């Protein structure tokens, strides 16, 4: 109970009890005078939110272009039979997460948007897919997606985008293989005036025939007023007009100085492993290095600390989703997310690189290996035993609780 107070306050002027007595009648009056209308329309900010971040976008494939023998660009337009009217605007460099039903299991894969945001306003997105040897989903897309196919994705996601408050407006892009796709969106945005930056792009491929967008980039360079330039670096061929070898810091320095410039890097895992070492040599501040997430780790056995005796092992994973429980097999060298998908359990997922946290699940029992550089978990999640299955590898039998599909 509160103690007796001894307040000596000067008289509170005109303030009086009458107003207090009127407090409730005033409230009742305000309520009874208000309209009894139902607010049926979404409020303005919720409408804007829905336009910027739609939960799902439904498309029809309008056109398919062969970029190389192993890369195709798919042009996606809104599916008129769905609720998708307009395409969400995005930041050049963002991706869409597509859902697939393959052999009874639902899987998701992120693909960078290769067209520009202005083109989204005109009513289409492009995504460019490279057939990956042994790649289960990219092969599916290659064999099954065609003109007229209906596909579904998330809204635009990801953080591989230029930010004028953070980045230098002089960008050094580094792309390897299919990592070239977001740079097409960025380059187009420079030419269309959406991005006020200079981009010099170092693009690594094995052979000339593997280069995606070669002719298109020539055209974009011509129209860019010097703001966009590509340096092609071929690992397996020595041709005139092309650099031969790998994208080393020495090679980069031959074309541009690198002080206080922002590096944007996108490619397969091997590229990151290589570039990381080059940039360490140069002592580049972290703020000037932006890397796109690159998907699942395919050579986990090469990571420091991965238990080598587990490489050939298979484990049992007991999974609880809602009221359902099941036990599924999992390889030590494949992420728990892949195991869940193979078993047809439809787990939620997004970036597949440990970052976005959409697959966040609770590990109840067992041991796992999580490589440090793809451990994007929150600190409290680490404490409380949560994992991101897309970047987590079982090294014993495990038991986990997975959320329902989002």
């Amino acid at each position: 109970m509160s103690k007796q107070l001894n307040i000596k306050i000067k008289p509170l002027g005109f303030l009086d009890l009458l107003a207090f007595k009127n407090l409730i009648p005033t409230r009742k009056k305000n309520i009874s005078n208000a309209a009894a209308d139902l607010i049926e329309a979404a409020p303005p900010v919720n409408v804007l939110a829905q336009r910027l971040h739609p939960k799902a976008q439904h498309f029809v494939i309008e056109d398919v272009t062969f970029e190389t023998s192993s890369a195709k660009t798919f042009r996606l337009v809104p599916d008129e039979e769905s609720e998708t009217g307009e395409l969400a605007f995005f930041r050049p460099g963002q991706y869409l997460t597509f859902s697939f039903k393959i052999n009874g299991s639902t899987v998701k894969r992120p693909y960078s948007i290769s067209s520009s945001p202005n083109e989204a306003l005109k009513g289409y997105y492009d995504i460019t897919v490279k057939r990956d040897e042994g790649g289960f989903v990219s092969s599916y897309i290659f064999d099954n997606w065609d003109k007229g196919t209906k596909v579904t994705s998330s809204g635009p996601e990801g953080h591989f985008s230029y930010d004028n408050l953070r980045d230098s407006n002089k960008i050094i892009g580094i792309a390897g293989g299919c990592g070239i796709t977001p740079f097409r969106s960025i380059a187009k945005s420079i030419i269309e005036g959406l991005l006020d930056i200079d981009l010099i792009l170092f693009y690594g491929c094995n052979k000339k025939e593997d280069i995606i967008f070669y002719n298109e980039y020539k055209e974009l360079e011509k129209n860019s007023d010097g703001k966009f330039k590509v340096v092609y670096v071929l690992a397996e061929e020595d041709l005139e007009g092309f650099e031969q070898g790998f994208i080393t810091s020495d090679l980069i320095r031959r074309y541009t100085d690198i002080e206080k410039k922002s590096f944007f890097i996108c490619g397969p895992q091997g590229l990151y492993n290589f570039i990381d070492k080059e940039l360490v040599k140069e002592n580049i501040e972290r703020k000037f290095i932006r890397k796109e997430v690159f998907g699942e780790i395919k050579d986990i056995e090469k990571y420091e600390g991965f238990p080598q005796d587990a490489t050939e092992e298979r484990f049992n994973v007991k999974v609880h989703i809602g009221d359902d429980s099941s036990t599924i097999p999992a390889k030590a060298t494949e992420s728990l997310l892949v195991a869940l998908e193979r078993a047809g359990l439809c787990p939620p997922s997004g970036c597949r690189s440990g970052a976005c946290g959409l697959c966040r699940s609770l590990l109840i029992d067992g041991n796992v290996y999580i490589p440090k550089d793809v451990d994007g978990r929150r600190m409290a999640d680490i404490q409380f035993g949560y994992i991101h299955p897309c970047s987590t590898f079982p090294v014993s039998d495990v038991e986990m609780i997975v959320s329902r599909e989002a």
Partner: protein
Amino acid sequence: MVTNDYQKEYDAVVIGAGNGGLTAAATLAGKGMKTLLIEQHNLPGGFATSFVRGRFEFEPSLHEISDFGPPEDKGATRQLLEDKIGLDLEWLRVPEAYRLIIPNEKGGRLDVVMPFGKEEYISKLEEYVPGSRPYVTDFISLCEEVVNAFTYLAESKGKADKNVLMDKYPNFLKTASYSLQDVLDAMKIPYLAQKILTAYWCYLGLGTKQVNFTIFAAMFYKYVMRAAYVPKYRSHGFTVALDKRIRELGGEILYNTKVEKILVKDGKVVGVETSKGDKIKTQFVISNASPHLVYNQLIYPKEEIPDIALKTCNARKVSFSAFVVYLGLNKSPQELGINEYSYFVYSTPDTNDIYKQFHELRRPTGQATVCLNNSIPDCSPEGTSIVYLTTLYSGDCWSKVEPKDYFELKNKIAEEMIDEFEKALGINIRDSIEEIEVATPATFASYTGAFNGSVYGYEPVPWDSVLPRMMCMNDEKYIKGLEFAGGFAFRCHGYSSSLQSGETAALLTYKDFMEVKNNEQTVEH
């Protein structure tokens, strides 16, 4: 038409795992009720969460929790989380109340750092505004009376004795229906002292001429007397702990699931339906979603929506959404020259002008900025810091924004805020930005579905402040079995209020549940 094909039955269902929903579910489960908490996201917390960019983990919405206190003198919120619910977490004391900078104050720049503690606060104010001591002492005593009166009202459970109120809390009654400015003026508090005393106004989202005095008094007093605290591992640290505790107490939680209908029959809750097709039988629902969302969108069938509930929604004003710039900086706070935890920078002296500007989509004139490292030194890697700058906007002033202009607009406003902060402190932070994220009202709306992106609740103007809400609680219970928790509930917004509102809603639900149970037993016997 509500049919009877339920798949499951619970004693109570809680909609939304925000602060209020979590404490509600934990309290219900702790009372032994079979409880299901349903959350649309894959993690708990609502706005009380965290997100990771690069090597930084950001705090999305919390600045500091009031009414918390040290372990040896626990405030109500610490008591709730630790003693009643059973969390055992690390909390850190915020070092100072705030630094307030008003560059264009009448008579020149105002720049003060205010400490916690009654004596310390009064003495510091006397230093800045000589002669203010007696006035400020009176003001704080009045605030204390307000807090004690609220405690009495809560303890008397709706049966407050008028004579006790008149006898012990006369100044509370006198001020209860007035604005903060009315009381400041009535007490003849010197102008500059007023400016310093009212710095926290933006946490209530109303200028001094509009905000009810008693709610401000209670907030101010609890901050200054009990200091403020923050959780060691961001808000996600305590919301994930609440998730665990709810399950330990026997409660269940369904994530990635959205409640789409609250089924009502003859004015009583009978169940809920979800986006995943679950149809759950229950007589009790606690909604962490606002009355605006519940009455306009969730009650099913629509004929069950009482007109008076819609009138109540439409009479009230949904308060602001937020605009937050999150910065991961590659220098330490000392290197940057950021020495305090909490900054209020008001570009124009009059709070009521700033309130007006919050309704217009232009350069922000008020910001509350936090440097997390100054309470949690190791919240980011050594040699780095986390700073976040917050301002408020009404949802409506974003109505004309087109998606194609959105990204440019948000960086423009972010830059203006950074600029204002840099100028106020005479420092440079923009060259040290390693990570940046900007949340707008659309981000908040997208994340929780909050009505018009509001991160607060209803505006606590005098007729809709805590006291009248409390006094009308029974009259305004429009559907049997339905209670509200969170920022839109009767305690008003803010972390402490939201957390405590969940407990209140749970206790009210439990009382009704026991009544129903006892009646059923009487019938059976």
